[in-house]
Each structure stands twice: as C-alpha cells, then as structure tokens.
C-alpha cells in the first residue's frame, strides 16, 4: 500500500495521484469529445434548422418541403429535446449501435472489423454520435431563432437586389443571425461539455469515468468528485471566456 498523502488533513491526494493517468487521459477525452461534438453538432444543427424553415412558393414544392424537410426536422428536434440524454446514450450503445456494428450480423459492418471497432471505439462512437445528435437538436433551434430574429426586410432587400435565396441567406441573413446566436451557442457548448459526463455510463474513459473508478476502488467520494468538479469548472470557465472573446469580436457591428 502506498503512503498516504493528506492535504488539509483530510484530502487523500495519493489516491488521485495513483490514478493520475486515468484523470489525465479522461481530461483529454472530455475535451476531445466536446470539441468534436460542438463542431459536428453545429453543422448538423444548421442543416436541420434550415430544413425546419424550408418553404417554397410553388404549391407542389412547398408540399415536398413540408413532408420531406419541415416534418422530419420537427420530429427529430422534438425527440432529441423531449427524451433524456442519458436514455438516448444507453439506447444508442446497447441497442442502436449493435444493430449497425455487430460481429454476428451488423447491418453496416460485421465480422472481425465490427468486433475490433466495438472493442476499441465502441463507447467513443456512442458518445460522439449521441452527443452530436442531441446537441444538433438544440443548436438547430438556436439557428432557427437566430434566422427568424432578423427582420424579413433584410431578406426581401437582398432578393430585390437580385441575390438568390441561398446567397441572400449566406451573405446577408446568416452573418447577422450568427452574432445573435453566439451567446446561446456558448451556453450550449458549456452544457455539452458537462453532459459528456453521462457517457461514462457506457464505459467511455472520460473525467467522470475516472472519478467513478476511484470512488469504486476506495469507497471515497470527496477526492475523486471534487477533483473532477474543479477540472470541469476550469474547462467551463475557459469556454465561457472564449465565447465572450468571440462575442466581443463578432458583436462589434452592433455597437455603432
């Protein structure tokens, strides 16, 4: 047994040190998953947000927009915002992913490759897919709100100058909307960072997993959970600072 190292007379620093490698790799995993999911979630969220807003003047095209774009987007958003993320993660890991990725009879990949993928990246795949799908639902609503908050005159003016709908959206509406979307996007990123802890339930070795492992091994709770609390807190402070920085940079146009 290693020597006990006590901080302030009660904090067993030695057990954190002993599992240091797990906390360190856990920190990198948490940051990595969060960054990847923010980027993917933003892209997917933009697509879904635009799908939710799709309209057309032609009656047939509009009906197509409704059933092929607006409807699926609405159902998607409703499902991912209306069910607990924790449930989505368990469903994904133990039910959905094994359908596609199964050594015996995967729809997408089967055989040894499926086994290797599942063994080496199973929890990571679950984590990235679940968090991306979930955050995309929230982000799409941020996009929709941002786009709808821009006065319709902006689009009309751009269109009357001869820009196509897509170009007007890209050059005129989205840049203005993006400024208003920054604060909620920042909040969403912070929420995503914290929610990534839920993926520890399927064995993804991120920060919360490290804490659970230590708590399980020592039946001590202050040390591991306080340690990761501080780490999460520092990460969210850093994210908040980054978002403020972006707001100051891209929000300049508003403060004329």
């Amino acid at each position, binding site marked *: 047994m290693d020597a006990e190292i006590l901080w302030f007379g009660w904090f067993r620093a030695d057990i954190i040190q002993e599992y240091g490698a*797990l906390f360190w790799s856990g920190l990198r995993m948490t940051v990595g998953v969060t960054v990847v999911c923010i980027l993917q979630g933003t892209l997917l969220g933009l697509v879904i947000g635009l799908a939710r807003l799709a309209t057309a003047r032609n009656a047939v095209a509009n009906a197509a927009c409704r059933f092929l774009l607006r409807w699926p987007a609405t159902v998607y958003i409703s499902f991912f915002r209306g069910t607990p993320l924790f449930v989505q993660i368990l469903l994904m890991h133990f039910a959905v992913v094994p359908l596609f990725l199964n050594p015996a009879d995967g729809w997408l990949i089967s055989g040894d490759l499926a086994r290797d993928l599942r063994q080496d990246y199973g929890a990571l795949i679950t984590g990235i897919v679940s968090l991306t799908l979930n955050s995309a639902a929230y982000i799409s609503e941020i996009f929709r709100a941002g786009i709808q908050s821009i006065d319709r005159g902006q689009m009309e003016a751009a269109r009357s100058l001869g820009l196509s709908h897509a170009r007007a959206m890209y050059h005129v509406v989205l840049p203005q909307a993006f400024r208003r979307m920054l604060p909620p996007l920042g909040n969403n990123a912070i929420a995503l960072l914290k929610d990534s802890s839920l993926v520890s339930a399927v064995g993804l070795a991120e920060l919360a997993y490290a804490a659970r492992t230590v708590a399980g091994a020592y039946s001590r709770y202050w040390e591991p959970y306080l340690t990761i609390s501080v780490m999460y807190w520092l990460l969210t402070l850093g994210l908040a600072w980054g978002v403020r920085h972006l707001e100051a940079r891209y929000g300049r146009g508003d403060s004329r």
Partner: protein
Amino acid sequence: MSTSSRLVACVVAVAVVAAAGAPSAPAQSRPLVVGSSATYPPFAYENPQKQIVGFDVDIIKAIAAKTGVQVRIVNTPFVGIFASLNNGDIDLIVSGVTINERRKQSYDFTAPYFEARQLIAVPAGSAVTTLQGLNGKKVAVVTGSTADDIASRAFGKTSGNIRRFDTTPLIISELLSGGVDAAIGDNGVIAYRVQEHKGLKTVNDPALAKDYFGIAVKKGNTALRDTLNKGLAAIIADGTYAKLYRTWFKAEPPVLPTQ
C-alpha cells in the same frame, strides 16, 4: 434572502447538525434500513411486482425475524452504496458485498454469509482458460467490485483494457454485443446470467481466491454487527440458511467460517 429567512435557515441548519450529531441508538422505534443493489440476481433483484427479492433479501429477513428487528429494504445503486452507509441513509448493506482488507478499514462486517469465487464469462468459442489469458484483451467489470479489484491488479488500474460499468446486466450486454472479450464477476451472478444466454460460457480459474460476502455496517456500529452475527449464527444453526441456499443456488451450502 431577507434577514428573517436567513435566521430561519440558520436555525434549521443548526437543528440538522445537532440531530446528525446525536447518538443514534439502535432503537426499535424505526425499522433498520437495508441497502441493496437490486440488479444482482439471484442475490437481490426486482421481480415483476417491483418487490426486491433474492438470496440476500431472504437472509436479512430471516436474521431480522430471529433477532426481532424490523427491516426495510431500499434499492441502492452499488456505486453509491457505501456513501449511503456513511451518510446514514441506510443502516446496513446486504448486497453481495465481498469482505476484503481495504473495506474492513472503513466498515465493520459480520461473519461471512456466502462463499464467493470470481467467475469469467466469455463467448462460447473463446480459448481463454485463465485470468492471465485475458492479458491484453478487453474485460468488462462492475465499477468498484471485487472483479474490478482483481482486474486492476492483474492488468493495471489505469489500463484502457478494463471497461467499467454500473451493473452486471450491462457487462453481460457489453460482452454479448462484442464490445469486450470477457466479463468478470461473482460466481453466483455470472453463472445465473450465462445460463440465460446461449453463446456464452463460464471459465473458472482456480487461481482466483475464494472470497466471502458479509453484511456491512458503519465503522464502530458494533452493537448492530453483533446483533446481526447472532441472528446469522441462529439461522445457520436451525437450518434456515441451508434451506434458503438450496432454494436459490440448487446446491448444498458450504461450511462458512464464523469470523
């Protein structure tokens, strides 16, 4: 917060602290709260009627009946079960808890009530025959369990090859879906789960030491521990224990050490 409500909050806080500090006699006025993680058949699990049943539950009920105490079983997730004992949310743990040196430093245990071994579950075609044969392979265990301890010692506590989950059903699911090469757990539970699933088999590594399950109480609560020990000795002496053992494990009970 107004001054008066702050005052009220202070008074409440002081009262709570005082109540927590008061000596808690093993009074019969309230039933003893028994923490058990009910995802562990046949030791403790929820039946379709939402009752917690199993060998552990029957043992503690038999002990309670013998010693004349009241018990109430509360389903407590294993990850937080020792914290619940420390907090005073529960008075004792009967949840297939293995007695080991590390736990004995922090909690008091009764005499053993079950002889356990660690059993390895693998796919039927697997060539693994020992724990060491799993070196370099992916292994699923329940966080903080004896199997976690064994795997941590054999493969390194921060090894990425150890996959930790909250419950035994999850490690079996992970094994079934090909996420790991093996799952390790207590014999009673692993054998029970493996017989449910074709395509899995168990591997018994004789090198894995015997363990014993005990009932855990808060460190220093010797009064409760002694009561439980007396009850346990009594149900072993009168044959109740053997009857329950046969019911749940379809086998003859081993002779248990009394310490």
